[in-house]
């Protein structure tokens, strides 16, 4: 099944008591594409990711991955079905080394036979080396993850998500707190991922979003407000109204 959409979110609603964090939202992602999700704080971006990976349960609607309904699957099964998420706050395993973090994230490590192995298989080693290179962390392989610089931590997390072999990667603010140069590197990294994966990115940083050159979806109050290129979205009066008083957030501060 290589044709057809990768992920379909259909009429999804997530409520916390009376508050609808996601309100009848539908969204479709194509294979091997990048999509950016923007929106003011509280728009429901992170909640949407939470619902996709099974951390919160939607009250209505469904989420379909390659034809399989994953709406009520437990979190670890959703990862195995093909969706892995990088969280907003760094979620590394600090006392393990960079290499160990990646090896742990490797999909080949799941299951009991793999659990009792003291050495990674040749297959796993090759894969982990590839990801070390991809993320530029080859030289840091033996450092405990907790001692990495901030930007490197973000890259390692992206690397872990890649190692999970999931077809769809959800990146929650992958460039947060990075320097200008690091953000550019991260954007390039994300684009390189599309040879094997689809990527859904949340970010606030417009320079970063611009560099991704990907379609943008604007979320507001749990609804999809607008979809289009970054240029189109920026010109949209509704979007500008939502960012009222903060419309400069939509501008690229590096222009």
């Amino acid at each position, binding site marked *: 099944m290589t044709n057809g959409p990768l992920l379909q979110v259909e009429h999804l609603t997530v409520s916390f008591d009376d508050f609808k964090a996601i309100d009848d939202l539908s969204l479709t992602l194509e294979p091997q594409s990048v999509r950016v999700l923007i929106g003011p704080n509280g728009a429901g971006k992170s909640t949407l990711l939470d619902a996709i*990976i099974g951390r919160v349960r939607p009250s209505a609607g469904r989420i379909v991955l390659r034809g399989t309904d994953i709406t009520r699957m*437990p*979190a*670890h099964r959703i*990862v*195995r079905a093909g969706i*892995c*998420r990088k*969280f907003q706050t760094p*979620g*590394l*395993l*600090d*006392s*393990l080394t960079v290499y*160990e973090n990646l*090896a*742990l*994230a490797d*999909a080949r*490590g*799941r299951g009991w036979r*793999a*659990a*009792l*192995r*003291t050495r*990674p298989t040749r297959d796993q080693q090759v894969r982990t080396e590839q990801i070390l290179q991809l993320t530029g962390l080859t030289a840091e392989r033996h450092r405990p993850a907790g001692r990495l610089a901030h930007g490197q931590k973000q890259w390692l997390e992206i690397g*872990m998500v890649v190692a*999970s072999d*999931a077809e769809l990667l959800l990146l929650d603010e992958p460039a947060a707190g990075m320097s200008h140069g690091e953000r550019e590197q991260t954007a390039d990294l994300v684009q390189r991922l599309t040879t094997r994966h689809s990527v859904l990115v949340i970010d606030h940083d417009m320079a970063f979003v611009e560099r991704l050159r990907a379609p943008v979806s604007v979320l507001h109050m749990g609804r999809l407000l607008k979809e289009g290129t970054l240029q189109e979205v920026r010109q949209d009066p509704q979007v500008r109204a939502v960012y009222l008083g903060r419309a400069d957030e939509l501008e690229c501060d590096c222009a």
Partner: protein
Amino acid sequence: MPRREFLVHLLVLGVLALGPWWLSPYNLSLLGRFLAMSILALGLTVVWGWGGFLSLGQGVFFGLGGYALAMNLKLAGLAPGDLPDFMVWSGLDHLPWWWAPFRHPVVALAAVVLVPAAVAGLFAWLVFHRRVRGVYFALLTQAFALALATLLISQQAYTGGFNGLTDYGPLFGVHLTDASAQTTLYAVTLGALCACYGLATWLSRSHFGRLLVAIRDGENRVRCLGYDTVPYKVAAFALAGAFAGVAGALFAAQVGVISPAMVGVVPSIEMLIWVAVGGRESLAGAVLGCLLVNFGKDWVSSAMPSVWLFVMGGLFIVVVTVLPQGIGGLLARRSAPGPAADAAPMTPEPAGP
């Protein structure tokens, strides 16, 4: 294992193996029972040190292992149809059905490992499956210890009650109180400790071991990488249960008694202190902590019997506030692979302050 570390282990093992030649019989018997208890400490390192779930009920599994062997020893040497002494005193006229299989020493020895492992596994599955974690898990284990100790005391006719099981018959025809049997038991204990130590060391280097540490550092993170964390935690807890069971059986065989006093809340907490003093992440620390605390206990309580509990409390406070990594952490800091250690690996540390 780095070569130097391996040699240190070998040296310590050699000194312990020669114990019967350089220790007085009294000290040898103490060392033997403390080494047995340190097998339990290894299990605590696995679940608490690596997995991060605190068990305040390790006495349960120690007790199950001890009772499993003791039941066989009570039945051994009885004429067919005879009952163990405490059953007669309690007015029982036939052996309860669940005692019968323990007549066979092989069954009893298997039960020493399997019963605690199964009970620990089932308990862990029920608790972890419901996503109970952290302090709530610890409280449940403590409640479990209290419940088992209370049950053992209340069922006098079946368990020997408060006095537990003592006054044993022979195991495989050998009376355990014989001097030569004590030496053999010491050797068996040391062998069991080595086997469990080896198993745990191997585990620490396996993917499973790293997963445990990862679950401690961030369980949700591990789940979001596609792992179901429950089976790994259950397996670790069952293994710690099996270790505790072996420890309990070796203890009962050497001391000649197993009673609720070794099962309940207070002994379970004491077990944690061994590991806390030794350093909860280090296997060597667990053994060392167990030996130090117990020899200390023996020494203090024979000199000033009423003081021990205060010493133990003080020790716990000191470890928690000043030495959170215990003695093992202190040793690891000295040999930690840092830039300085890389540059001069053989430089001896200056001794003392």
